[in-house]
């Protein structure tokens, strides 16, 4: 399992993961988001809740997601997060940027092997 530090890159990455998760799943609560990210990473990621919840709060403060209390499948009260319109746009932008960065890094690292 990879434990990430609380650095800026990780924060940005986690935000994008959260946004993508909400895009595929629709409304979801914090616990569900964490589970889903861990499953998607095939167990390679362990989400630190001390990072996840502030990240959710930051996205909400920035207007990319909104939250509402509701009732979960387990019939429990839970705070549900969902994407806003600004959030959807942000996913496109961040994805493009991430792909570009990742392409550059890949080429860069490959170049080192020559």
């Amino acid at each position: 399992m990879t434990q990430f530090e609380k650095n800026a890159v990780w924060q940005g990455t986690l935000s994008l993961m959260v946004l993508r998760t909400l895009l595929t799943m629709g409304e979801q609560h914090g616990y569900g988001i964490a589970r889903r990210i861990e499953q998607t990473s095939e167990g390679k990621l362990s989400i630190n809740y001390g990072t996840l919840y502030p990240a959710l709060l930051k996205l909400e403060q920035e207007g990319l997601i909104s939250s509402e209390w509701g009732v979960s499948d387990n019939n429990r009260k839970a705070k549900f997060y969902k994407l806003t319109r600004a959030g959807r746009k942000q996913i496109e932008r961040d994805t493009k940027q991430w792909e570009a960065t990742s392409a550059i890094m890949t080429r860069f690292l490959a170049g080192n092997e020559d």
Partner: protein
Amino acid sequence: MRALRAWWLRVRGCISPNRGEREFDAELQSHLDHHIDDNIRAGMTPAEARRRALARLGSVASVKEAHRDRRGLPRLESLLQDARYALRGMRRNPAFAAACIATLALGIGANSAIFSVVNGVLFAPLPYERPDRLVSIWIHNPELKRGLSPLSAPDVNELRRMLKTADIEAMQANIIPASLIVGGELVPAQGALMTAGMFRMLGRAPIVGRLLEAGDGLDAIVISYAFWQRQFGGDPNVIGRSVFDGRRSLTIIGVMPREFLFPYPSMLRATVTFTASSDVDFWAELSNIVAADRAFIDRNTRLIAVVARLKDGVGLDAARADVDVAWRALAQAYPEVNGGWQAAVVPLHEQAVGGVRTQLLLLLGSVAIVLIVACVNVANLLLGRGVARQRELALRSALGAGRGRLLQQVVIETVMLSMLGALAGIFIARWTTPLLVAWAPAGTPRLAEVTTNWTVAAFAAAIATVCGVIVGLVPGFGAARVPARQVIEEGSRGSTRGRRRLRGALVAVQVALAVVLTIAAALLTRSFLAVLSTDPGFRPDHLLTVAINAPRQYDSDEKRIDLYARLFARLEAVPGVISVGGTTRLPLGGSNSSTQVAIEGRVPPEGQWPETDFRRAMHRYFETMGIPLRRGRVFTEADRAGAPPVAVINETFARKMFGREDPIGRRLRLGSNSPLRQATIVGIVGDLRHQRLDVVPNPEIYVSALQAAPYAPLLVIRTSADPAGLAAAIRAAARDVDASLMPYNVRTMDELRAASVTPRIFLMALILGFGVLTLALAAIGVYGVLALIVGERTREIGIRLALGAEPRSLVTLILKQAAVPTVAGLVAGVAMALLLSPLVSSQLYGVNAFDPPTIAMVAAVLMTVSLIAAAVPAARVLRVDPIKTLRCD
């Protein structure tokens, strides 16, 4: 935009922190429940499921803290928390807070008031368009020791054509005193003559009517806002109205706005005449006068002050070089008048206020010392707040507060104290600044522009912040440095040695600064007393001075001589009048006039004649003034038109121009400013202090008014009783001679003498006041330290007494504790005062900046004050009851 929105939400989070906290508790609980549900579904027992879920969540406190930090702004929150804490502290100990705030309010208020004046006079830009591009152009002659002087009209005209880097406009280098008849009432007024383009160059438009145009005749005037309000009640229909100046009627064509003040007297650094009052009431076109008056054609008659606007992109150096080249050409073209003269370019702002810079900066420096001493006192108060506070800080440090965080908390508290002090200080400044302005010497330029504005408020806030931080850091570092364990272990007695040493050092600083200010104040006071005891060269008591203007029908010398003779005879008949005389320039009257002079037999080339002060003497002038005759004779009735022209000189003239030769009987040639072009010296009179009491006399020459009758003489009247009481009788007597003869500017010579020393009184009294204030603050500092020492050592003193120590020796022991920092501060202060003495030396008169008696006196005063301040707490030793103190623990 998004960051801003997030920031705003976080600021709101700081304000109502509880709601977010409760909500997140619920969210975490829900998170945990979901996890437990999942675990149970995976087959765990409820207990195991709960245990695993909790383990996975980790430290609930740290998750909550991370969330809390994101919810609000942690830095802001800690600041708010400290601020709330500081406020609680102030409420708990209001006397302490009040003492700190009052001390700082005094310091900051005094600084803000002085800064208001300094800012309005020195720092604020002149009230013209792009004033930094304006300069004055002068000429000076180092060989003849002639300072910055105006130019001649022909030179200005040529200069205007030659300069490539600047546009120039001209004005007559003296304010014209006039008496205008406005609606039948005689009003003294001051006029300035300048070229029509001057208003436009300064970039100012009239609020009513129009500006002067090049084609305007001699009779068109623009009036000032103040004159408009005073004489016409701000009537908008004033345009086209006429006032009468005794010779012709002048038509008002425009009114300038209130803030248009031009020229300041300091912009007219003229040798010819100069009045102390700074308000110009009307402006008229100069070119007409120049064209009409033949005197202006003379290249040797230098009456024109030049103001120039540098062209865009031209620097001061480039302009200087340009003016220099142009002037050299003029000096070469006219070597007999312009040879040896050089041009000088002075920024207009410097020209306007340069003369008072030293005094104002001295005041600012002195008042800054008051503030420093006040800050030290507050720091001392904080240090003396006792062990309790230090223990509290140590405890918080032990509980995990970082050193930075502790410092922040102390500094926040002191900054809050000083901000409250600044708030009170601004009110003090608003209240005292008008008093300062009212009291400032009349000749100070730009006083009308002094206000307590936002700049001053910002200044107060800035110095309050600096003071707060410094005052907080001193005790803050002291507290943060001591290891927490030590403080807590030492219990209520605490560690006080280091702090006591710090407090001693602070007292030494206060004493040193008090010494500096007190020495400066003592030197200025001694200078002032020296000025007051200076013999003015005449007897100023029981003298009344009166200005009159010969009415228009007295248009020849004969008619005026007859008028004045009848007037003098009538005035001498007034009961209480001893004798009467007259002149054209009064000593200490704020104006002067000079002419060029040469001794026959050794006449230098034209343009290199030395300058001498010039006046006319009327009737029994020397006798009335009490000016002693040294040799020869004064004027008699026989020295009238037709008789050989005669002159009386002063001793300085005789000494400088003749040395050991006998001046009596020598013939003089006089320059174009003099109505007589030649005269024979018949007498020598004593020197008198014409400009100010502390300015040594110039060479001076008098001619007889019977040979050159003035239009606007100044009469002096010696009286047997209080001269002020005779004013009405003098006015009536003048009207008896001619109903249109209206005496004005009726003042006693004592008033003039007092006015001539006001700049000195102003500076001296303020610095003396600041000196006394710092002395008081330093005394409080000494008192505070000793009170602390006695308090801390009460038990030790009790033990010593119980063991049989002499109470008196214990008092001495305590007093020694005050003596060490006092003496150290005294030595440091004297050294500092000597280092700083060049700053005040220009303001001293009759005393050196290094004056051992003054230093000795200040040292004695300081030691006495310090000992008295120390004696109060030291005396408490005598009241210590050994039994009580030994029991109390």
